[in-house]
């Protein structure tokens, strides 16, 4: 409060710089959001799955490489068997 007069001496930030700062913040908010993707549904016959789960894994990776245009090292596919179901978890790192 005492040094209110110092405010007058403070150098004003140029408008373009101020706007750039807002723009950067917005860009970060928008980019950090999880993007909604179209839903894809695949039906894999049980016999085919039991026969060669690794082949299924490779197919998923191939599809993800084409769909998201990323390196295959950035795709992680996990197959978990639970009761009568198989859960396929696919993680794609888009960064």
């Amino acid at each position, binding site marked *: 409060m005492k040094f209110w007069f110092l405010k007058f001496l403070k150098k004003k930030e140029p*408008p373009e710089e101020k706007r750039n700062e*807002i*723009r950067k913040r*917005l*860009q970060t908010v*928008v980019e950090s*959001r999880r993007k*909604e993707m179209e839903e894809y549904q695949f039906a894999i016959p049980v016999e085919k799955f039991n026969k060669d789960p690794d082949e299924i894994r490779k197919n998923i990776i191939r599809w993800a490489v084409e769909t998201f245009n990323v390196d295959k090292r950035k795709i992680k596919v996990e197959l978990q068997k639970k009761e009568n179901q198989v859960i396929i978890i696919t993680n794609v790192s888009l960064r």
Partner: protein
Amino acid sequence: MRKGCIPMAKVFVVTSGKGGVGKTTITANVGCALAKMGERVCLIDADIGLKNLDVVLGVENRIVYTIIDVVNGNVPPKEALVRHKILKNLFLLPASQIATKEMVSPEDMKEIVKELSKDFDYILIDSPAGIERGFRNAASPAEAALIVTTPEIPAISDADRVIGLLENFGYSDEDIKVIINRIKPKMVKRGDMLSKEDIESILALEIIGAIPDSEEVIAAANKGVPIVLDGTYITKNYENIARRIRGEEIPLEVDLKSTPNKGFLSFFKNLFGRKG
């Protein structure tokens, strides 16, 4: 035109993601502007449970049936329409206040729009805020979307999310247009607000209109007379949006230049109680 949508009338959904950005006001005013140009316009209030479009249009006392009566099969869609007091080619299909969004499905909306599209040139669907059922109901029968945003980070980032969802529904970039509401040119100049160019570059979509912040919009909503019928400096901005929807090419710079008349003559007009 996007796949699976209904032809004949041009059907727009007015949406935003974030609440309170001015969807209802824009639906009412763009609808009025199109009707003033001689188009047959139907506005659908898809904000079931809240409903405000009837109030902004000033027809709240004329409602007999609502969209829920149509969904339940009590009346055909045309019978539930409310005609505007001044613009005889502008109609409203009101929402119900005592119902919930879950009482209507996207299929119901498609059926209603299909039925109405035979009799209208334009149908504007006022979507509720959010990205849940109400938004899906509003977006499913439309072929194009008007995304309303204010020039602030939460509104733009929500608009971006909604754009992503619409793309998943099958909307292409050409089907989605952006309207910037409550822009303050002075704040943009000072660097405290994002400009039209900033928003355009982040959302990567065409901006079809910019409406400056104005106290008169609030006054008009309270009177129940859309500002387009009140003839103020901001009227032109809504009319320009309507013209662009009809395919006319009007540069957006025209909208950004509109400011309240604060000249010498206006001072005396205001002094004697006349509009500036």
